[in-house]
């Protein structure tokens, strides 16, 4: 799907010359919608939803999981949206779920000659090797890999570091006595859980690094792991999380993109806790804030914002080549859930700080790299 955000008035789909109407607002009003819809339709006819009229055109192409995952893809997108709030930028979203079509999709996007194309996920790497030299006037931002071309900015996320921090958080808190809105930990039993989306090398790296983080806190803690089988469908992930909770896990972390909601749901229904991934999910899933103790985050939005800014400032050199999202650069971190701010035991802050230091100092011997083992 494709959605444009116009920076000048901040509303969605307001490319029309007529005064902006937020379609979603219209539809939400239900019955009143019928009358208004006619007006919107008319506006649609008069307006032009083809091609942009912003000063800058920026395109973002999704990972196979697609947008609306409230994690990876949406995280990258939100940085661009922030930039669009700042400058006159049109954002064009292209969802590409068919990996076979990636090369074509990149070329399609490049044909429209935007100022920047953001490629979410390393599945884009090989197609980009062909397309970057093919379209030298387009600037490319690749997430999770690097292509050695002048017009490519490659961003490696230190996923293993982020997963390690999640493990440290879970390992620390399973020993503590936490009670909130009916949910509670079981300090007597040392079991935590991990649910992945699909069993692919990237997520296996999450799993192993998370286990290392838990072990770093206390190697007697048992880690239950499982995969829900999908990045889209929360039900499989939910089954896994429930199964783990019934086997004694009191905190479960997920690396399942949009399907990770299944973990929050499991924690919520079974009076246990969960940890978010990529961004502060106690905010993006605020209806689950009472069970999200915290999130292991990477500032992917900062990265996309930074690159967008470099394009606007005509300063591509500053982002060209390999860039890292790392603990050292403070783009990888732990944030406590919004409902638990100030409520957490001191041991958590202590352990997280120690772990981060250990990572920066190279004291941790990671079994897996950022994208696989």
């Amino acid at each position, binding site marked *: 799907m494709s959605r444009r955000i116009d920076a000048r008035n901040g509303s969605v789909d307001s490319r029309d010359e007529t005064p902006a109407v937020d379609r*979603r607002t219209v*539809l939400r009003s239900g019955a009143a919608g019928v009358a208004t819809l006619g007006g919107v339709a008319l506006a649609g006819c008069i307006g032009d939803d083809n091609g942009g009229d912003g000063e800058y055109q920026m395109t973002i192409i999704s990972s196979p999981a697609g947008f609306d995952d409230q994690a990876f893809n949406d995280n990258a997108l939100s940085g661009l949206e922030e930039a669009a709030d700042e400058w006159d930028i049109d954002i064009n979203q292209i969802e590409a779920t068919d990996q076979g079509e990636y090369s074509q999709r990149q070329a399609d996007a490049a044909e429209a000659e935007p100022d920047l194309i953001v490629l979410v996920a390393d599945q884009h790497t090989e197609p980009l090797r062909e397309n970057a030299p093919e379209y030298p006037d387009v600037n490319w931002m690749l997430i999770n890999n690097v292509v050695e071309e002048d017009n490519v900015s490659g961003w490696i996320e230190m996923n293993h570091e982020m997963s390690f921090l999640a493990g440290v958080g879970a390992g620390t808190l399973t020993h503590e006595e936490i009670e909130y809105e009916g949910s509670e930990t079981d300090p007597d039993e040392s079991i935590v859980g991990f649910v992945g989306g699909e069993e692919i090398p990237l997520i296996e790296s999450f799993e192993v690094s998370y286990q290392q983080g838990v072990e770093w806190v206390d190697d007697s803690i048992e880690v239950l792991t499982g995969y829900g*089988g999908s990045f889209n469908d929360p039900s499989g992930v939910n089954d896994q999380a429930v199964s*783990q909770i019934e086997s004694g896990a009191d905190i479960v972390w997920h690396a399942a993109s949009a399907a990770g909601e299944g973990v929050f*749901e499991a924690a919520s229904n079974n009076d246990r806790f969960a940890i978010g991934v990529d961004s502060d999910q106690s905010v993006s899933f605020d*209806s689950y804030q009472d069970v999200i103790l915290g999130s292991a985050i990477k500032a992917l939005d900062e990265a996309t914002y930074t690159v967008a800014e470099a394009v606007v400032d005509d300063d591509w050199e500053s982002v060209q080549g390999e860039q890292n999202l790392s603990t050292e650069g403070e783009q990888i971190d732990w944030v406590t859930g919004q409902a638990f701010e100030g409520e957490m035991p001191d041991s958590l802050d202590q352990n997280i700080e120690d772990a981060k230091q250990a990572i920066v100092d190279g004291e941790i011997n990671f079994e897996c790299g950022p994208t696989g083992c």
Partner: protein
Amino acid sequence: MSASTSVLEYTQHRRVRLAGLAVAVLAVLGAVATAVFDVPLDRIFTPGYVARSMELAAPITLAAIGGLYAEKSGVFNIGLEGFMIFGAFFAAAATYFVGTGGAVHAWIGIGMSVLLTTMLTVLFAVLLIRYKADQIVAGLGVWFIGLGLVPFTAAIIWGSRNSPRMPGVGRVTVPGASEIPYLGRIVFDQSPLVWLTILIVIGSWVFLYRTRYGYWIQAAGDNPEALDTAGIDVNRVRYAAVIFSGAMAGLGGAVLLAHSSSFVGTGQTMVDGRGWLGIVAYLFGNYNPVGAAAAALLFGGVDMLQGQLQTLDIDASPKLLGLLPYVVVIVVLTGWGKTRVPSSVGEPYESEE
């Protein structure tokens, strides 16, 4: 007839075979788990496991009952998957517009969903019965439309193919009784929708085999002329059965949503093949609502089992374990495949031409 043949006949009885099979499959898997991985059975078949299997089985069962009514009346509703997608979406959209505050909104959503899906099925039924559309092709079309228009509309409403969080209906917990070991969690601490499903299973069985309308449905699918010459309007019976099938599939989708946290419209949507499993379930159950429910429970159980095995760290690829239900379907269909399809399924009926 000697005693041995009558035993043979008895075991050929599908319901017995199905139940036997379900027990056998679970027993073998359990035994393998115990022997090979040294995992005690009680850690696999926890009360939560059983309760959750029932929860998983509920939407499949509902779709299956709808499907078997339609097919018994002579119309193969292969669009169950599509109607479930619509059902889940309508429930989410209706809840979204009335408010996402609590269980009451969820129930309103379920009611609205059944209503809207039923209206949609009326169109489908007119197409099939009045305009004699090819049932298989039109059913596939409904599936494609569900996969296309539902995410499209979701994106228009929510700006995303996934909905925000939806309220659930919670569980009905009977104080005291829910503390009974094992059975307490399964029986007295259970989703009300599971109870609703059980009621529908029993009700649809009674309706089919004990009331005159049930007779008419069976006759409409097996010998519509006999029903017509008995003075009953065959197509009216078929309309009723097909519309009911859509309502049940819609309810199945709504139940799926209520047991989940939000509507998912990406990929194959949250329905993800459950409508197809519904068809398989009633074929297994030989068009008997109770049999279909048993088959659905088998799928739910096998599905949950692979989750349990992962949690217990049994070393097998989750990707491959996840294929278990599909393999079981093929094995069972092959070994016990002879389902007696009503003889006039797929044939439009016209009393005069």
